């Protein structure tokens, strides 16, 4: 039986399909639906048409809207997914849509975790809002040749105040890419305090930010530590969910 892991994030929903032997068949993502209770039953019906009988486990903020086998905590899922994909990485910094987390995993088990309890200026939502304000697509952000540190540094740690800083920068005709780089830098710098709680060793970066070209060296400078960018950095929790589905008896 195929296993499907679904990570329902605040901005995007990620899917991992595993075949009965535990190999990944498909990784995909889509914007998280607004009316999830209507959307997911139909989505699952289409997945069953494609793969036959499936076992489904979900995680993330919208997990309870997915009628599957069950749901698990996203940090637990992340630990499983990291161990499957990057077994040598024990410290993971995950920058999600709504919050930022650091986990320590060992053999796929969640050992320690810390969440940011500051404002959304430390999460992907800040970047998404800024892109919207600038009228640009998130997919257009490129840090490949970005100077480190960026020319502009935001001073606010609060998303509300940071937004007003950005509005002023726009009014001053600051190029969009410079503003976006400053926002990414701020998100990473805010994450440093969390990393401090586990000690800075080589870390694995996960979440939507891993899709940005050039993020590796940028993060290295911002976080002042070695950072690895996994191949499927956006899908680790979904992979973890699929693995948990695989644990369940058929």
């Amino acid at each position: 039986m195929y296993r499907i892991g679904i990570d329902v994030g605040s901005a995007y929903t990620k899917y991992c399909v595993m075949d009965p032997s535990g190999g990944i068949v498909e990784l995909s993502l889509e914007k998280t639906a607004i009316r999830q209770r209507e959307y997911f039953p139909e989505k699952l019906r289409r997945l069953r048409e494609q793969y036959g009988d499936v076992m489904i486990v979900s995680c993330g903020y919208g997990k309870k809207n997915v009628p599957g086998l069950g749901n698990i905590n996203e940090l637990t899922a992340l630990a499983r997914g990291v161990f499957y994909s990057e077994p040598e990485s024990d410290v993971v910094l995950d920058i999600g849509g709504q919050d930022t987390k650091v986990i320590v995993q060992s053999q796929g088990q969640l050992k320690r975790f810390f969440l940011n309890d500051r404002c959304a200026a430390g999460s992907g939502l800040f970047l998404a809002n800024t892109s919207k304000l600038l009228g640009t697509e998130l997919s257009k952000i490129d840090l490949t040749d970005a100077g480190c540190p960026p020319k502009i540094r935001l001073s606010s740690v609060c998303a509300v105040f940071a937004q007003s800083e950005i509005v002023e920068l726009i009014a001053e005709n600051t190029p969009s890419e410079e503003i976006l780089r400053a926002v990414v830098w701020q998100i990473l710098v805010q994450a440093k305090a969390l990393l401090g709680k586990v000690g800075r060793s080589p870390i694995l970066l996960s979440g939507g930010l891993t899709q940005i070209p050039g993020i590796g060296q940028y993060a290295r400078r911002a976080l002042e530590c070695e950072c690895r960018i996994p191949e499927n950095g956006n899908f680790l929790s979904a992979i973890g969910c699929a693995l948990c589905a695989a644990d369940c008896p058929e």
Partner: protein
Amino acid sequence: MAQSILQIKSRLLREYYKDFSKYAKGKLPEKKVAWVTAFVPVEILEALDISYYYPESYAAVIAASGAEQPLLEESEARCLSCDCCSYSCCIEGCLEQEKGPRGVPPKPDVLIATNNQCNTLPTWWNILAERYQVPLIVLDYPGETADRQLAYEYVTKQHRELIAELEKLSGNRLDPSVLAELIANSERSVAEWKQVAACLPEYEIKPTILFDDISFLITSRCKTETAELYRLMNEEIRQMPAAGKDKIPVFWLGYPLWYHPDRFLSELLEDYRIVGSNYVTWWSLNYSGQDVFEKLFQAYNFTFLNLAQATRNERLAQLIGESKAVCAVTLHNKSCKCDFVSAKNIAIPQAEIEIDMIDRTFVDMEKARRQLEILKDAICIG
């Protein structure tokens, strides 16, 4: 004359820092060591020949030397939230890393904390007690909350107990005449300091001098040299030009910004002149009373931050009136709720700035600039 001021300061500083790790180089202190909060009756410790150090003051030194950020990060990483008082975060980081511009203070034999400034300091001292596994003495000062006679008896019994415990620790006996003389020294230091502070509105001086040099009143007020130091400073300042009248006279309501070279936002206050500050009056303790215990009660039970709001209102009104300030910069200090509320009822326009006296990254300078511009408009239009 300038050389004498410098000589006295150097002597006091050398004496104060000689047992810090950078200078001691492994040599143990000769006397017993106490770590104290800012308003401990140090005259008792001095009389018993016990050395005393102020971690809060050292946090100010750390910030002044630009070294606070890595220590604050270290403190946050070890789980003392950065929402806590930055004095404590800075020092905890220093103790974890064993790093500081003058090294670390000598290990305490006893910790003494009071609640006549805030309730956070004794709480912080509890974690120091866990770190060093030494006795913690907390002195409880009811302030104006309790009936005066009741408070006097309670405080005096605590002072007597403190003496007994410190006699055991030091192996010395307290000579009441020595204690009386030390209190007299403190009184003289306060009297001279008040003269120096009174110069601020009258002479062309920056408040930086007062913010920095009040440190001797804090750390060395009962030493004979301190009164002489301030007397000489007073003489020197009174030879400076009179203060100009072209800038807006403003009252600085809050702590000095230890990380700033000028200890205040000089780059945003170019159109203003600071003519008064409540901080520089805090250690002007009132040692009135018939005997040593009455004097100590009066001085330490009625510290500014231990007063009721009504009394603070009166004091501030008097200070502001004397300074002739027409407006105030009020620091909404992340590290000190207790002082911020003092400004609640002052009658002059104020710009409230969210800031921290240790963490230079806390303030939003653009926001502060806008607030001061609005304040200026309010003064000029009004």
